[in-house]
């Protein structure tokens, strides 16, 4: 349903004003004092799903800060943005985290980068900026130059949360074996059980959003977007282009839509095969790690042939795509995807009865349906817990409205469920690729684009392999974005980790975190510090596996005794 029709059905009183930014996006101008009530209305009456928050410094043009809360109305295929103006003299905003736990990080990021503080926030610590970043300096404000390097605050230190009573602290990271990204996790453990955790991430904060609104043009920012994540680069560059196109009202030629779907599914296949290998690597099943990546490699060569690079395809453009697939592309594509399908099915058949694998994956890392909704997780993490959301169906983009595909949902909520979701999605992606090659029409691949008009809002979602990636964009007056907010899927998924790990064994922590397919992987070697005696014990992977087996047989013995 178009935004305009939807507005007439909404019943919001008070000083709230509604308007359409574009056919897919409803802007709701809410004063700060009515924000919480409006957010509750969107959540409960309109069945909205919180996506992200974007703060902006509009003091030069409107004399105020602005905070936008983006919600997805999945059943109606629309986005709704709650826009609040904030007085610069008193930069505070009521927090929505108390009733939307998934908004925790988003609000802290607005505080870090713009300086608008959420009141009554349960965890107001610094999130994004480096520990030695001075207080009171907010990078996304317009008076901060993107290439400034303020002097270090030597007193800056990250403060860990107080652990629950009678628990020890396990520090993991930032550099760790098999940790593909630096991240610092403190697990609070009692014996073998995890009773809580504290997380310090954002070691990869590179200042991307600032560069797009201070230094790079619309065209250059496409390549910036592509390198947000090295595994789903096409997702972010296409999502950015879509946000610009929504804002500026640019129509894309049909062939370009199909090509975008094609390249996106290409990326999904390689990403999921990569994950299957990595997940097995975390639990020590290196055979499957090697086999999964062996199956995947010809696909990378195919991508290199079709796009010019194995991973950073570089094909997104505002108005369409930059390059078509070569004439003889289909001749090379079909044998490769047929072979992957055959080999993957053989592997899946082989592991169905694998007792060790099932023991490690079934029943571990359980994320309940309620928790998944509360933390607004997305992608296979959500679908593995029975939450039926998929941006390709709920907010159709590229050619997905014309393609026939199944959204893979499992009910278990454990690591096995998430594994099965991803395996099924690879097979679905292969089917989608075949459909695209058959249905793709001839024609131009890129629309002519004039100057992008300023002060237009565009919101776009793309289903990355990890979940929904959402970009919010406000166009600016000098042919670059005024504000660009990227919300990657792992941003929401990582917030669900504490709920997932609660009550789990330490040995199940790596695969549980890894099953989110975050843009980092987890531990195989941990140092345990006993808070009281100060003794340090280091566990090797073999020991962890033994601990796991011992704990399982202990459980079985105690169950046998009870029964």
């Amino acid at each position: 349903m178009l935004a305009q029709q939807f507005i007439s059905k909404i019943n919001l009183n008070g000083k709230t004003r509604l308007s359409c930014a574009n056919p897919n996006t409803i802007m709701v101008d809410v004063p700060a004092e009515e924000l919480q009530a409006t957010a509750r209305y969107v959540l409960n009456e309109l069945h909205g799903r919180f996506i992200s928050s974007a703060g902006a410094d509009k003091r030069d043009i409107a004399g105020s800060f602005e905070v936008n809360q983006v919600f997805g109305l999945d059943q109606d295929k629309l986005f709704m943005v709650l826009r609040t103006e904030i007085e610069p003299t008193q930069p505070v905003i009521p927090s929505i985290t108390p009733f939307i736990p998934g908004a925790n990080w988003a609000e802290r990021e607005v505080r870090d980068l713009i300086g608008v503080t959420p009141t009554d926030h349960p965890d107001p610590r610094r999130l994004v900026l480096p520990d030695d970043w001075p207080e009171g300096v907010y990078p996304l404000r317009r008076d901060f130059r993107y290439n400034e390097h303020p002097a270090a605050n030597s007193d800056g230190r990250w403060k860990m949360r107080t652990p629950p009573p009678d628990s020890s602290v396990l520090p993991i990271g930032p550099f760790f074996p098999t940790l593909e990204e630096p991240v610092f996790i403190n697990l609070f453990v009692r014996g073998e059980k995890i009773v809580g955790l504290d997380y310090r991430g954002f070691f990869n904060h590179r200042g991307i959003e600032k560069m797009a609104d201070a230094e790079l043009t619309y065209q250059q920012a496409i390549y910036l977007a592509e390198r947000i994540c090295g595994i789903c680069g096409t997702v972010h560059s296409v999502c950015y282009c879509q946000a610009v196109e929504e804002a500026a009202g640019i129509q894309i030629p049909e062939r370009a839509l199909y090509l975008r779907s094609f390249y996106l599914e290409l990326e999904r296949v390689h990403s999921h095969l990569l994950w299957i290998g990595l997940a097995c690597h975390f639990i020590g099943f290196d055979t499957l790690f090697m086999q999964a990546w062996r199956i995947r490699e010809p696909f990378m060569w195919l991508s290199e042939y079709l796009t010019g690079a194995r991973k950073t395809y570089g094909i997104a453009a505002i108005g369409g795509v930059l390059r078509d697939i070569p004439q003889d592309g289909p001749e090379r594509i079909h044998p490769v995807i047929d072979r992957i399908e055959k080999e993957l099915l053989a592997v899946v058949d082989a592991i169905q009865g694998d007792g060790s694998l099932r023991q490690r994956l079934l029943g571990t890392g359980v994320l309940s349906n309620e928790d998944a909704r509360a933390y607004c997780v997305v992608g296979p993490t959500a679908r593995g817990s029975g939450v039926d959301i998929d941006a390709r169906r709920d907010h159709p983009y590229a050619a997905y409205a014309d393609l026939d595909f199944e959204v893979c949902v499992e009910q278990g909520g454990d690591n096995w469920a998430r594994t099965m979701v991803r395996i099924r999605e690879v097979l679905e992606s292969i089917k989608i690729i075949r459909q695209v090659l058959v249905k793709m029409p001839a024609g131009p691949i890129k629309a002519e684009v004039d100057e992008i008009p300023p002060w237009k809002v565009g919101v776009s979602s793309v289903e990355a392999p990890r979940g929904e990636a959402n970009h919010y964009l406000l166009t600016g007056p000098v042919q670059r974005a005024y504000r660009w907010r990227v919300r990657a899927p792992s941003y929401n998924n990582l917030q669900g980790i504490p709920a997932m790990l609660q009550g789990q064994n330490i040995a199940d922590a790596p695969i549980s975190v890894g099953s989110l397919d975050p843009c980092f992987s987890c531990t195989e070697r941990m140092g345990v510090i006993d808070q009281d005696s100060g003794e340090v014990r280091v566990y090797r992977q073999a020991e962890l596996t033994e601990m796991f087996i011992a704990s399982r047989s202990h459980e079985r013995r105690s169950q046998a005794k009870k029964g």
Partner: protein
Amino acid sequence: MNSRLFNWCFKKSIWVYHANAGACNGCDIEILDVLTPYYDVERFGIRIVHTPRHADALLVTGPVTRQVRERLLRLYEATPEPKLVIAVGSCATGGGIWYDSYATCGGVKNVLPVDIHIPGCPPKPEAIVYGVAQALGMVPKQVQAQTYIEE
């Protein structure tokens, strides 16, 4: 450092530690790819180790963000001599697309002494193998700075 000792130490196989200093993961998964069947760098005895204490070489990716810089320095100090630092990818070799951002240090060479740079975004697994082989003196350097002045 005695270069004869250095050459002798690295004659056979080197053990590498992979450190992500704020990279997007593109270079990291290409490094992992080098272990997988098609490229199998383990047949040369090169393997990834899980502690810098065992490492002969550090494979560093990423532009070195401000947040990770101190930890990277500590990692470098924890690695015993003789050691090599190999910067992998455009972010590590030149700072990448965000070389002048407020949140990055502009490349590994601004933080650690680099022995070999492997450019690419991300570099192909073959390029990474070539770079490591070059660090061991097995293959020659193929690039040279080019200057042209119009007559």
